[in-house]
């Protein structure tokens, strides 16, 4: 047991109403045992002498006073945190993307990145959605979950998805245009391999559930008579 673990002490002087305690000053004196402390100290309450304050070095008056009073900005102690994740979104949840190129597609949620965006994958073979970032606000979480324990998503972070900064080239006009075109079109092999490795384990788990594969391949749409506020996702 850790040394000096005390049970949390109930208040000695409970409030009758806010600002009014149950016990009077003299009762509290006895309750706190101040008489015992005094007795131990020979009749007077123990004092300790003030610590000698080191003499502050003589401050010179400043040479320069600003003309106007500048207001100091208020102190801000807030910390940057990733967006609070909805309780319905857990790793392995099937999400419905609502906006963008893949609107209506059903997608598997992998993890939340430090920027707050959700890391998501189709899987690519099933519905053509690669490892991608998606904002939580543009997503409906369904209650269907896929087992994601066999997938390693440690290496993916926001930098992985950032735009690649190209080094500035000197402008030789003819060469300039050709070189640009070549670099933009291809996806680096590394990213393709990452996609394959993440999807391999996922697809096995998906195929274990009947119809789940075709479910992920299909798009969601509202049909006649479907009321979104009454639908259970």
């Amino acid at each position: 047991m850790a040394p000096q673990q005390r049970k949390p002490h109930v208040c000695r002087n409970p409030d009758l109403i806010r600002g009014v305690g149950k016990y009077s000053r003299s009762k509290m004196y006895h309750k706190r045992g101040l008489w015992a402390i005094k007795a131990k100290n020979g009749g007077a309450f123990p004092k300790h002498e003030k610590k000698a304050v080191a003499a502050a070095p003589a401050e010179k008056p400043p040479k320069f006073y600003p003309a106007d009073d500048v207001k100091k900005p208020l102190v801000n102690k807030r910390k940057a945190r990733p967006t609070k994740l909805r309780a319905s979104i857990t790793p392995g949840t099937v999400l419905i993307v609502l906006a963008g190129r893949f609107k209506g597609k059903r997608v598997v949620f992998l993890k939340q990145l430090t920027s707050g965006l959700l890391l998501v994958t189709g899987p690519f073979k099933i519905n053509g959605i690669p490892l991608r970032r998606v904002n939580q606000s543009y997503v409906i979480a369904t209650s269907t979950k896929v087992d994601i324990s066999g997938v390693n998503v440690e290496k993916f972070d926001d930098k992985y998805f950032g735009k690649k900064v190209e080094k500035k080239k000197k402008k030789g006009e003819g060469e300039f245009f050709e070189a640009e075109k070549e670099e933009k079109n291809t996806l680096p092999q590394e990213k393709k391999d990452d996609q394959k490795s993440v999807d391999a384990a996922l697809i096995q788990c998906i195929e274990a559930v009947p119809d789940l594969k075709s479910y992920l391949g299909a798009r969601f749409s509202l049909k006649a008579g479907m009321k979104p506020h009454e639908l259970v996702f």
Partner: protein
Amino acid sequence: MPFKRYVEVGRVALVNYGKDYGKLVVIVDVIDQNRALVDAPDMVRGQMNFKRLTLTDIKIEIKRVPNKKTLIAALEAGDVKNKWENSSWGRKLIVQKKRASLNDFDRFKIMLAKIKKAGVVRQELAKLKKETA
């Protein structure tokens, strides 16, 4: 067109408005022209306006205001639960509840099943048409 379902002690009714919406309750006493004393195994006995109740065909044998134990025994004896769930009204309500609680994945699976069923029906129809033609 005479009435068939009467308000009487022992009449099973469905609550159609209010906190207990959708529950089956038993009319245990009549208070006045508008209200009944109503009881069910999972609720505290209380009064309810007749306008909040819809009478069913089911009736059980109880005396006026029985205690909870007797009421539950009478409900068992009258087999109210099974009668209700096998009646067409009860079955409809069960289907409605099931449909409302369907998952997005469930809806997808149902769509596939409907398409499959329609395909089979159409095949059979084509066969029959061929025979008669």
